[in-house]
């Protein structure tokens, strides 16, 4: 699974330069620099409050960074309207709470919203049906969104983003509400989307599970205290020292074999660092 991204002619779908974001006086992100190639899946790792969600939201104009520039398809995002941007990028929130529910079909159909003005065409409906099939949601098509379980809702929201057909997906913990099997299923489908040679898609995925990241990501962006701690392939980023410094736990790395990808066995928390970790989280 690793290192399989295809090199494309056009270099980057996303380039972030010198991005800084703060809530008032409190800095959240400092001098973030990275880029994402076409057909690449980048996992964003970091502790709670490291700025993973904030980073994703900056790229979708949900949050306005104080400095820095973000280029999508070699064009600055300030030059995009929100409607234009939504044709290139889709942000998938962790969860969606709603007071006004709809059928699952209609929720996924909202992904077509950037492409239609009023009428729904047959092509739009087909796209929605195909997406529902891809995510095994056909049986849920005419069930109400708010009556689904958290995990099912999360799959619907991911499906909505896929129906939107953007070049870049921003997933904010797409597996947080899912059981073990569905975590792998959803990550596999994201991987599959990115690997599809007929389409040009890339994804940034904020996750907590280091092993999901090793297994599915081409590169890992490790955030620590609002800065990029490391940005490279899983093998180079996830070493015992980085994991100890960022997550405050001991770990054992099992290298990739022919049968299984690289794995990280997490050990105990590092006791003498506990005070500083608590400080970070606050």
């Amino acid at each position: 699974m690793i290192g399989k991204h295809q090199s494309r002619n056009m270099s980057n779908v996303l380039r972030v330069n010198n991005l800084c974001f703060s809530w008032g006086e409190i800095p959240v992100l400092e001098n973030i620099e990275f880029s994402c190639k076409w057909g690449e899946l980048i996992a964003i790792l970091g502790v709670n409050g490291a700025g993973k969600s904030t980073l994703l939201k900056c790229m979708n104009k949900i949050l306005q960074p104080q400095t820095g520039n973000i280029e999508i398809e070699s064009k600055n995002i300030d030059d995009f309207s929100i409607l234009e941007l939504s044709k290139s990028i889709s942000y998938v929130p962790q969860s969606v709470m709603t007071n006004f529910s709809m059928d699952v079909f209609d929720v996924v159909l909202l992904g077509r919203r950037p492409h239609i003005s009023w009428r729904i065409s047959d092509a739009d409906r087909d796209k929605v049906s195909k997406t529902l099939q891809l995510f095994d949601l056909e049986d849920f098509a005419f069930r109400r969104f708010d009556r689904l379980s958290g995990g099912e809702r999360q799959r619907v929201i991911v499906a909505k983003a896929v129906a939107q057909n953007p070049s870049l997906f921003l997933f904010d913990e797409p597996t947080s509400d899912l059981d073990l099997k569905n975590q792998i299923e959803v990550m596999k489908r994201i991987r599959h989307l990115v690997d599809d040679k007929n389409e040009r898609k890339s994804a940034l995925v904020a996750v907590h599970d280091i092993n999901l990241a090793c297994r599915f990501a081409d590169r890992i962006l490790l955030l620590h205290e609002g800065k990029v701690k490391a940005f490279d392939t899983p093998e180079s980023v996830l070493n015992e020292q980085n994991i100890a410094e960022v997550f405050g736990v001991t770990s054992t790395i099992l290298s990739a074999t022919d049968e299984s990808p690289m794995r990280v066995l997490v050990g105990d928390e590092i006791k003498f660092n506990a005070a500083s970790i608590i400080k970070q989280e606050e």
Partner: protein
Amino acid sequence: MESISEKHVLNGRNQIFLIVILTICTFALALFSMGLGSSSQLDMFSTMNIIFDKDQFSCLFSFGTLGGSSTFPCNQDLQSQIVWNLRFPRIMMGMITGVALSTAGALMQGCLGNPLVSPLTLGVASGAALGAAFAIVLNLSFIPVPELAIVANAFLFSLIVVAIIIQLGNMRSVSAESYILVGIAITFIAGAIVSTMQYFATDAQLSQLAHWSFGSLSRPDLGNTIWIGLAILWILPTVFKWAWDLNTLSLGGDEFAISTGVEPVSTRRNILIISALMTSIVISFTGLIGFVGLAAPHMSRLLIGNDYRKLIPCSAVFGAFLVVFADTMGRTLFAPIVIPVGIMLSIIGGPFFMYLLLQNRGHAH
């Protein structure tokens, strides 16, 4: 795969069918209601004959009627007089009120993502009540014509509230909750001023103010009704262009809307301005009628779901039906006593609202 798409198309057709049925029922109710009354009972066909009399139409659209003169209808027989000058404006006004308030209610609930919002939430009606109180108690009015003093005051004061909403909307990153909280604050402030005036008012003024606040459809005459109707008809089509935006905003909130290509802050501001405007146009003529703006959208949601492309027309028609129904009950149930429509709506709407709250307690989130 084919079947899912087909089923979706079919569901959509069924919903449109329901809206058409509801529209037919509403017009039938309106015609039936025009035949009811203490002085002359007419069946629906006689009513239709009077309403769709060709000679009357040319007369209706002459300058005199729209200017508010009372020479209409040209046909001077008693039945035509009663239907055209008493019942027709009343029932037309009922339909317009229902359409405007329910549409405004549905729009506001959607763009604020809150099912408890009604057209009165933003404080537009409290502004109108304050204006009316100024005219009635202090005799202060923007327009010195006595018949229009209350209406003009109510309208202008509610426009002040609309202006506050616009100001609020121009602030950066104003949230849905801020609108609701500011609306509640406006309601309290306006209420306090009105109470102060009531404290010093004479008995006659108090009774006039109380009557205004009941909400009634009998005040606007035929000319007023036509003008109000045209104003609402002019605003209504602009509302439909927000249907998709409302779907995304009401389903997933601001972040979800942005990732779907909808700019939430300006969209919400524009929707609220238009809703508040529709509300103030109607309420300055009728007085406080609120419940239909809460109940009709919710009944429509139960009937056809939350897709605003269908919810807007459905709420509009449902609102018209409810107001005409409540008004007809109000003037026939205890005839010759006429109970104001605002009271009837609350009596019918109140228990429904409680039912909704109890129903939703099980699966709030």
